[in-house]
């Protein structure tokens, strides 16, 4: 059962719980042992050896299933249970002296708003850009798919 939650979302940052890892380790060890017993008994006790080999193979199949089955869409321990808040910044430019300033977005900002007096000249700074700060995740995704 550990696989139910434990094997969840290996693609999304390998979020496999330690219980699942422990279960995989134990099952893996037992399966390996079963296979070993199966091989050393093969010939002398072929019947029992076949059972051991079958158990070992089934164990590895179960591990494979736990690790490589399709990514579930959500998990009970999902850490994205709240609406993600992103950082947004506002870029202001002075049309007179080209002075540029970047600050955090605040309610009421909009693109092409005459916002605040320029600190260098007597002009009024205009909001020229509002965008979300780049996230690490985006960069990683880009790197992963760059060969495509």
């Amino acid at each position, binding site marked *: 059962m550990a696989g*139910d939650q434990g094997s969840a979302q290996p693609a999304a940052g390998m979020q496999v719980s330690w219980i699942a890892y422990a279960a995989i380790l134990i099952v893996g060890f037992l399966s390996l*042992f079963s296979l*070993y*017993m199966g091989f*050393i*008994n093969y010939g*002398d*006790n072929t*019947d*029992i050896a076949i*059972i051991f080999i*079958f*158990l070992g193979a089934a164990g590895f199949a179960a591990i494979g299933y736990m690790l490589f089955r399709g990514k*579930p*869409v*959500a*998990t*009970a321990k*999902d850490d*994205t*249970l*709240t*609406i*993600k*808040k*992103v950082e*947004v910044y506002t870029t202001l430019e002075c049309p007179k002296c080209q002075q540029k300033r970047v600050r955090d*977005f605040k*309610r*009421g*900002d*909009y*693109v*092409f*708003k005459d916002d605040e007096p320029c600190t260098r000249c007597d002009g009024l700074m205009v909001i020229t*850009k*509002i*965008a*979300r*700060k*780049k996230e690490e995740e*985006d960069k990683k995704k880009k790197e992963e*798919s760059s060969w*495509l």
Partner: protein
Amino acid sequence: MVLIFGQVLQAQESDLSMILQTLYSFAFIAYLFYAQKIQTLQMLRQIEVTLRKVKTLKEEARERTVKTLIEIGKPTGDIGPRVDRFIDFFSIGLENMDPAGIVDKMDHFLKTNKRVYEAEVKALAPNATPTERNNLENLIEVSQALNIYYKVMRHYYLLGKKTMNIYVIMQVHMILPMLLQMVEAYSAGIQAFEHGMPIGDGVGPIVAAKLMHGYPQSDVAEEIVAAEVPYEGRTLIVFKAKGPGGSVGNPDEGLINILKERKGKVKMIITVDAAGKLEGEPVGQVSEGIGAAIGGTGKEKFKMEEITNKYKIPMHAIAIKQGMEHVVAPLVEPLFDATDKAVESVKRIVMDYTEPGDVVVVAGIGNTIGVGQ
């Protein structure tokens, strides 16, 4: 240790063999009869977990909607019940058994819908400015969408649980990743609509705003603003939804009014809009084509196509590609940067297909939240 274990096994070979074979046979028989049941339970479990997530998201969206309405609109009394009632609001789709005249019916239907939203938001947020009211309308729409997703998913989950019918359950299970993607996309819009930030769908209006900024502007239709921009001997009539409030305006009416005023003497129309990207395509890719780049119900597209066909004006389209998760989420940098490329595309198309003295209409299609002009 292994040898000792082996010897023990050999000594009790027959007993152990019998036990293992019995267990194996039992597991085989159980799996033979209950495999589908196990699969069904597993799918139900995944749907349940996803449903719980959707529920949390829609509840948070509702809380934040109420909080923003109170913060901006400063209403008197408890608005919670009214918000809940409005979140559950529905519109009945038009009957299309006899499709003749359905576009006008759709126009009327959409205007009624808009009026209801305006009235409700005005009642919920009496002190909000018109711009803020537009943003609040969008915010409520997101809460409504999340509520609908939750209710439909819950319906199929409970129906599946009640009937234990694998085919009912499988239908939801198969589209679960796409549903979750859509739910996450909508929930990403909450922050944008709360604060009035530009969103991914706003790339069209940004392109139009970049072209028309600084030129005299006038209203050409409901919530549509236009400006005449001289460019290399040509005249560009650029229009977009009137910002910075969250609105898409009526671009079809805007185009019709402009063309009627010019008696159809327009060389070319260029529509710029956000478009869904295919997996593998980069965010912010600018593509060019022909036709009306506009989404929505189809009413606007139909009317734009009809009027351009009447005057036989070619329509060019510029699409700025983005994923579903970007459409209502705060604008990402590659999309904002793509608007500069789209402006260059507009200028290049104008230069390639028109002569000095020609008039070209440029339409920036999309939600203009957080974008002035």
